[in-house]
């Protein structure tokens, strides 16, 4: 019994009613509103509902949703009951909605773990209300600087969230900004990729986050760069360097839509298979395994959980619809978007959809930090859509892509129809939407008859 007072009980009932109503009416996704209303009424509701629960938190710029989805699979494969904000609503309102939904009428939640993907700016708030037991920090890239101001600010928010030394930190060793996060004497588990087997995947003169040594303030250098500022880093001025990760992913090999990889966990080697392409997902897998290692989960069951993971809508899964192969990849910042661009083949039809709503980032300057130059020799037409389509058209023109091959279609539905027409069942139709364009796309695809496996 979580000792809800009468007001909190009322807030819980209202929240549950709102969740029911939004499901019934399908007016909105209903992932934030119930929590928002309930918290207005009873500000301590999140705290009360999450009290005494084992909490696993996932934060960082990229990979939060995928990493936490993977962790969910591994925990359930190990027989644990898990409550997870899998729709990705990661602000306090969304987290509270998740708890309200999972709670019974007495404010009790029957689960072994609360698995919460948490927005970087929300982390300090959550941490001040409930004891986080495990915190996974994926990476720190520039993203939504219109909200956070600067990258250093984002890092400080995470540090503020590390409120005491009881939180076990699961850190990306390859990101010098994450790895050097200021902590107390927290237990740390590091994860990363293997420098010997991962070739330098840096494409072009990509904008790289600068990192500095926390001991002597010198600029960080690299033995090898895996991707953006992620790599085998060291300080040229003192002894500071990347710690040897406890969990390492090595030798990635694509087999159809599956990836076969080798994981080294605490110096022991394991073979694993999963269906998430690319270097970036190798980090998500590595982070998930690091948490499993920290929790001392059964490794065979964990690997089974990974194998069964289905990507979220818009997170680079391959869709077959109306005789067309379609790949949808959410883009939201230069690091992730440049990586997405580097995997496009010259004969694909591309749709790029850019919005500038709050959830996308109001500032679209990041388009200029993204390597659209990777498309300069693209053979086929490129369709641009979304509220800021003309900015995207200008960006493509300046990437020296043939401007006569740019099609501007503000309405996303019209753009998708044109994409199907252009692709004509051949090759891939590649869609790169920002976050709110992806939400729109979800509805468009539902209307086209696509059955969603995982929603955002």
């Amino acid at each position: 019994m979580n000792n809800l007072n009468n007001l909190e009980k009322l807030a819980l009932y209202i929240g549950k009613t709102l969740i029911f109503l939004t499901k019934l009416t399908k007016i909105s996704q209903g992932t934030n509103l119930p929590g928002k209303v309930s918290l207005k009424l009873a500000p301590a509701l999140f705290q009360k509902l999450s009290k005494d629960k084992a909490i696993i938190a996932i934060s960082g710029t990229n990979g939060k949703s995928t990493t936490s989805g993977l962790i969910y699979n591994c925990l359930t494969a190990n027989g644990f009951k898990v409550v997870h904000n899998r729709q990705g609503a990661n602000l306090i309102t969304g987290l509270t909605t998740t708890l309200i939904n999972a709670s019974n009428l007495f404010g009790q939640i029957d689960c072994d773990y609360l698995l919460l993907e948490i927005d970087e700016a929300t982390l300090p708030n959550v941490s001040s209300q409930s004891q986080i037991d495990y915190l996974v920090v994926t990476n720190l890239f520039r993203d939504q600087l219109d909200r956070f101001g600067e990258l250093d600010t984002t890092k400080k928010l995470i540090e503020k969230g590390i409120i005491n030394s009881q939180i076990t930190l699961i850190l990306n060793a390859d990101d010098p900004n994450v790895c050097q996060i200021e902590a107390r004497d927290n237990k740390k588990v590091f994860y990363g990729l293997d420098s010997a087997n991962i070739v330098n995947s840096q494409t072009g003169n990509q904008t790289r986050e600068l990192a500095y040594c926390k001991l002597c303030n010198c600029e960080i250098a690299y033995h090898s760069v895996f991707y953006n500022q992620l790599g085998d880093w060291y300080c040229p001025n003192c002894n500071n360097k990347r710690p040897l990760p406890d969990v390492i992913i090595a030798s990635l090999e694509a087999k159809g839509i599956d990836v076969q990889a080798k994981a080294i966990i605490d110096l022991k080697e394991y073979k694993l298979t999963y269906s998430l392409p690319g270097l970036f997902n190798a980090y998500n897998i590595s982070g998930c395994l690091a948490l499993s290692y920290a929790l001392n989960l059964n490794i065979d069951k964990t690997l089974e959980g990974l194998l069964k993971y289905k990507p979220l809508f818009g997170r680079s899964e391959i869709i077959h619809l109306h005789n067309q192969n379609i790949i949808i990849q959410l883009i939201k910042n230069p690091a992730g978007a440049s990586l997405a661009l580097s995997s496009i083949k010259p004969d694909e039809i591309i749709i790029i959809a850019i919005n500038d709503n709050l959830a996308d980032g109001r500032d679209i300057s990041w388009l200029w930090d993204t390597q659209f130059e990777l498309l300069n020799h693209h053979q086929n037409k490129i369709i641009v859509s979304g509220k800021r389509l003309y900015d995207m058209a200008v960006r493509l023109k300046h990437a020296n892509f043939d401007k006569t091959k740019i099609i501007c279609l503000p309405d996303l539905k019209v753009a998708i129809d044109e994409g199907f027409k252009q692709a004509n069942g051949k090759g891939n139709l590649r869609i790169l939407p920002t976050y709110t364009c992806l939400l729109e796309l979800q509805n468009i695809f539902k209307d086209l008859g696509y059955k969603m496996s995982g929603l955002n």
Partner: protein
Amino acid sequence: MKISIAHLYAPYLNIYGDIGNIITLVNRCRWRSIDVNLVSVSACKEIIGQDFDIFFIGGGQDKQQEVIAQDLAKYKIEFEHRVNDNAVILAICGGYQLLGHYYKPHAGDKLPGISIIDAYTEASYTRMIGNVVVELLDKSTLVGFENHSGKTYLAAGVKPIGKVRLGAGNNGGDGFEGANYKNVYGTYLHGSLLPKNPQFADLLILKALQRKYDINELEPLVDEFENLAHNLAVGLKR
């Protein structure tokens, strides 16, 4: 024709897409068959003995700005000469702040500027974030996105770039945005600034070329996407 561009502190001041300004300057020259010599500069000693028509300096994070301010301050006299020699300077955000007398952060010492523009900047506790529309004297507009907590105050008689129709501008108080002295332009506008303000980009290119060539105008380009993007941005909400 030939134009020489120095991208100052390129590895450090590389935030908020300011590289888009360099891309635009380079392309708008190349599309007119003007040769471009682009030099990426990480410390100002590298510019000594080389002539440049345009200097670009972008915005960065506070930490990077400290290092850069110290380096830049050593070349105050150098830049005075360059400015008097009609070099074009475009400075955005953090770079703009360093063209004034100083930047005073919340804590710690003032960062020295190079006093090219008679202005100073002080850190504030409000972060001015959002779309900006600036109206110039000729009623034309500049569009962009600002994201700064420093407030810049121009001395009496210093020309701003324009008046803010939308947004905070220099300090959120006097209604002005940016500063202009000779061929030097400082502004808070990211976005990037030049891609969707092609007329302003061309103004900078023309002034740079006029240092060496007797020309009054540039060969016109077709700016259909640029104009669409510009006009759309004029109608954006804060």
